[in-house]
């Protein structure tokens, strides 16, 4: 029986490796066929609407609440050290460096990522992708690539909006509600948040997350078994896999970027 389990483990590892290879090849194909996505930018714009604009509500509302909670929790903790005026710094740095890119990415993965997977999976199940191929139109160029670039473009914008809303939320709670000095709030923030180190790094992170999430979503959709269970399983896998990928990439990028501060 032990032999059987080891065999199973071996098979699944091999299959996992094979899948990664296949997924990488798919990713390269998307990049190679991206010409149409840019030449006929209308296709990409349409997808930016579906991925980005339709995610706005959840991103803005979540950003606001996260910022407000940061304001509350931050104030509680800072007060014990007598450093209430550092609230602005706390809220801004937490959001811009980490929470903005990461939480926005996780929300994007669940909302837009799963929608992309379901859409493509369904198109595959109803033979729309085959029909397109038979009409001599490459589905990767026309259907997959525009969605990829739409995701990559939308993600940093959404992360920035999340962070901005969060800072506003922190301001609302800290300054308006609790009474931290408004001038101190903003001036302390300005002096500690560095454009290159913090903001640009946050933007880079969100672009990387966008690439990862959209690529995973597209792959799972394109590869889904053409049945109802197949598509629903693929959507679940997209959310789980891209969320894990975002968190893992976050660690790698943070270690890489913020190592130099010491």
């Amino acid at each position: 029986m032990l032999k059987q389990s080891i065999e199973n483990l071996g098979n699944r590892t091999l299959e996992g490796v094979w899948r990664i290879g296949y997924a990488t090849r798919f990713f390269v194909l998307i990049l190679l066929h991206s010409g149409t996505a840019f030449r006929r930018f209308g296709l990409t714009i349409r997808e930016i609407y579906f991925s980005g604009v339709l995610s706005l509500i959840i991103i803005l509302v979540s950003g606001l609440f996260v910022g407000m909670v940061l304001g509350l929790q931050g104030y509680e903790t800072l007060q014990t050290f007598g450093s209430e005026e550092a609230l602005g710094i706390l809220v801004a740095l937490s959001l811009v460096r980490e929470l903005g890119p990461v939480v926005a990415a996780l929300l994007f993965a669940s909302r837009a990522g799963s929608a992309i997977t379901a859409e493509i999976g369904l198109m595959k199940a109803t033979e729309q992708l085959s029909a397109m191929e038979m009409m001599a139109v490459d589905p990767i160029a026309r259907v997959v690539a525009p969605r990829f670039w739409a995701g990559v473009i939308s993600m940093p914008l959404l992360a920035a909006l999340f962070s901005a809303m969060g800072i506003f939320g922190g301001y609302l709670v800290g300054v308006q509600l609790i009474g931290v000095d408004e001038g101190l709030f903003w001036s302390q923030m300005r002096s500690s948040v560095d454009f290159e180190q913090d903001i640009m790094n946050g933007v880079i992170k969100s672009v990387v997350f966008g690439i990862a999430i959209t690529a995973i979503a597209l792959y799972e959709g394109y590869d889904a078994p053409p049945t109802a269970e197949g598509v629903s399983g693929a959507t679940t896998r997209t959310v789980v896999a891209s969320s894990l990928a975002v968190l893992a990439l976050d660690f790698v990028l943070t270690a890489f970027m913020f190592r130099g501060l010491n």
Partner: protein
Amino acid sequence: MNKTVLDLWVGLFVIAGIAALLFLALKVGSMNTVNTTDSYEVVARFENIGGLKARAPVRSAGVVVGRVTDVRFDNETYEAAVTIRLDKRYAFPKDTTAAIMTSGLLGEQYIGLEAGGDSQKLKDKDRIIITQDAVVLENLIGQFLYGKAQEGAPQ
């Protein structure tokens, strides 16, 4: 969905996103790098820099006049060599003192410049001769205890 309405929404979305980025860049953060063309570099040597890091501010009379760009260990003199980049608008005399200070009681460390009286000014690649090391807490406590012991001791 009508194509023009769609385009409108996407346009608004992109504008809002860029506005958020600009807000973050300008109102929240600040460009902290001192431009290389309107600045000059000087070096200062310390026996102990405490917790001073690169990108720490350099202040004089409380105003930021430059940034620490590099912190190195000199293996020959066994001292720390700190490179400072100063804004060209501010010229300091050659006998300026550079001291490592702490922001508040437990805050970040920065370099405080106190101008001397020399008529000659520091130029690019010059060295600040007079330096004051960081206050190391252990030494302070040691001094305090020693002092206390002294007080109690003479019999």
